């Protein structure tokens, strides 16, 4: 079994996985974190695209569970020496790994890789397609705060077009019964994501009205260069999450950001540091917990709603 997108799993599977992640979170809060659950298993982090946060998170998740973890960077490696992607995959297979965690800049690579590999493939982000463990940790963070997902309204604000996080969040939250609002400039909204559970808004105030959760997406400078937005300043003025904008949501609103943040662009410092509403550091901690749960489920996990 692989984890390419959250749609691979049923709602019950997701709930079971989130419960497992909560148990894992208790483990990493112990003074001695390491457990022998995956002792003797080997996991490769294969990152063809630069990443600090997600790679560290997967590496720690594997190590806390007692697995051996190797990191394979796309740059400065055999990839740059001209080896094809699929030859790299065959090489990994020959090393008898038990799971491959992959990030790639091109959408679809983990899925095709999974067809080539017998061992589980875990998508750690592919192009502008999916980032399922990010979706899981977002759902986990919200579920911790509200106790449930069903009936909530989640606003995802920003560059949805280029966001793999948004696509995974939509799958995770919708599967568990939440409503989604996509909010941002029309030039950064893809077609094909709207449904009876997903609505699109161009106006921030309308989009945030009464929502329970706000996921703020990172806006990249190159969107300005490509003409999709006029300037980062104007973007901030229209779609940046300020204290004032926060007041349009429901009073107990939870603020998420997948990081890394551009303070003063898509999110203000005051909002980030707002202890009541911001759950940004919870997301990071939960990231390790859900990745432990995923590894356990895929390579060590009997009895987890299998």
């Amino acid at each position, binding site marked *: 079994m692989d984890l390419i997108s959250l749609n691979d799993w049923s709602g019950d599977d997701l709930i079971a996985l989130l419960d497992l992640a909560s148990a894992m979170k208790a483990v990493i809060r112990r003074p001695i974190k390491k457990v022998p659950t995956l002792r003797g298993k080997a996991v490769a982090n294969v990152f063809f695209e630069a990443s600090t946060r997600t790679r560290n998170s997967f590496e720690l998740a594997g190590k806390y569970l007692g697995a051996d973890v190797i990191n394979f960077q796309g740059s400065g490696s055999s990839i740059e020496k001209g080896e094809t992607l699929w030859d790299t995959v065959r090489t990994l297979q020959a090393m008898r790994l038990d799971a491959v965690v992959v990030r790639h800049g*091109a959408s*679809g690579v983990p*899925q095709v890789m999974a067809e080539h590999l017998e061992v589980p493939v875990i998508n750690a982000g592919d*192009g*502008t397609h999916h980032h399922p463990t990010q979706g899981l940790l977002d759902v986990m963070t919200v579920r911790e705060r509200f106790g449930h997902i069903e009936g909530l309204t989640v606003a995802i604000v920003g560059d949805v077009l280029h966001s793999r996080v948004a696509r995974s969040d939509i799958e995770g939250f919708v599967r568990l019964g939440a409503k989604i609002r996509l909010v941002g400039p029309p030039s950064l909204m893809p*077609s*094909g994501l709207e449904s009876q559970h997903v609505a699109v808004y161009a106006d921030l105030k309308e989009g945030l009205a009464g929502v329970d959760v706000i996921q703020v997406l990172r806006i990249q400078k190159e969107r300005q260069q490509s003409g999709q937005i006029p300037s980062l300043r104007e973007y901030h003025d229209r779609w940046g999450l300020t204290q004032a904008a926060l007041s349009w949501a429901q009073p107990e609103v939870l603020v998420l950001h997948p990081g890394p943040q551009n303070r003063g662009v898509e999110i203000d410092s005051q909002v980030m540091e707002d202890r009541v509403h911001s759950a940004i550091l919870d997301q990071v901690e939960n990231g390790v917990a859900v990745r432990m749960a995923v590894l356990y489920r895929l390579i060590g996990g009997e009895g987890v709603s299998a």
Partner: protein
Amino acid sequence: MSQDATDWIRLEGVRVIDPFRGQDQEGEVLVGDGTFQEPTLSPRSRVRTMSGRGLWLVPRLTDMHVHFRSPGQEWKEDFRSGSMAAVHGGFSVVATMANTDPVVDSVSLIQWQKAEAKALGLVEVVPIGAVTKGLGGEELAELWTMEQGGAGGFSDDGRPVASSALMRAALSYSSTMRHPIIQHAEDLELSHLGVMHEGDVSGRLGLTGIPLEAESAMVWRDVQLAALTNGRLHIAHISSLGALEALAWAKSRGLKVTAEVAPHHLFFTDARVGAPAYDTATKVNPPLRPDNVRQALLAALKMGLIDAVASDHAPHHADEKDRPYAQAAFGISGLETSLAAMITIGLGEAEMTPLALFERMTRAPHRILGMDYVGVVAGARADFALIDPKARWSVEPGGWYSKGKNSPWMGTELTGRVISTMYGGHWTMQEGEVVRCAQL
């Protein structure tokens, strides 16, 4: 099935579907000395009589848009493999695009390509010359000189003539010639980084989209330039609603504007990119479109708004397709499925008559490329395909003659199979086997 070169061939009870004469009737066909002969004639040579019962005879199937990749990219295709693929697909005439390495932008390369094809003796190759030197989009190539050397048209295919001023100049110049400017219409800024049709499926798969308007905006510009210049414009692989409207506008004004459509745009939709997901055999430019566009293209072909069918045969080596979707090469190897795909979809879903369908694959490309042919008439060169219209078969590119096995039809069942192909009075393919090739 051995045959002396001097033997004549009599086909009895064959259904002759001849768009050149506008006739579709069962009859007898006699071939001798390289040409069709009056069936009533009593030849001096030995005559082999064959039954054509249940078969269709279609003269001079023509694919006016193929890539034979030579010179320079022979790992993808060459004249030998490309010609064999053409006759395996039933074709007698193909027009080869100029985006080779070096680019076919001079009369010497036009003549070299014609000589290569002639030495093989399988299929008539009509080289298309480049519109601009080196496909650079900056200076016109020597169009008239290439025409004198046998070029059948001019195209920078693979990329558009992007400059409005240069396109105006090319169309203006073409008004003095017999052959068209064939435009690959694509606004490269609108399609920038795109790898599939922009729509619901691209949004879901996270692939960068190419909007319909990348094509239609340029086609509208081009038809206006055709009006300005009275030039000959042919729109390659048309794939958008806006381009169909521009084409209808141009035709209603009596402009010298024509268009072709590729079988894959009539057969598949962008949903095929998602099932199975990221199958690079579906990556093609222009991209597979949604079903409403596909149906509109099919209807336009049926009513004759779109003049011709052309495969845009674009063979690639497996290594060039076996990559992440965004990095894989664009193109579909289409010569060996084109006819069956069109029988399946054109006669099936679109309910065209065989005569109308084959007109788009024979007479129309002849007209567009300024070529003369009279059809199944005594004295005309005997070029034809014999087709079993009822045969059902599953597409297995592994057995193809083309070096390019890149086909979204792999594993698809199609109806209609070419049984044999004759070129210049000789069998070039029989029972699926290419039988005459100088270098075999």
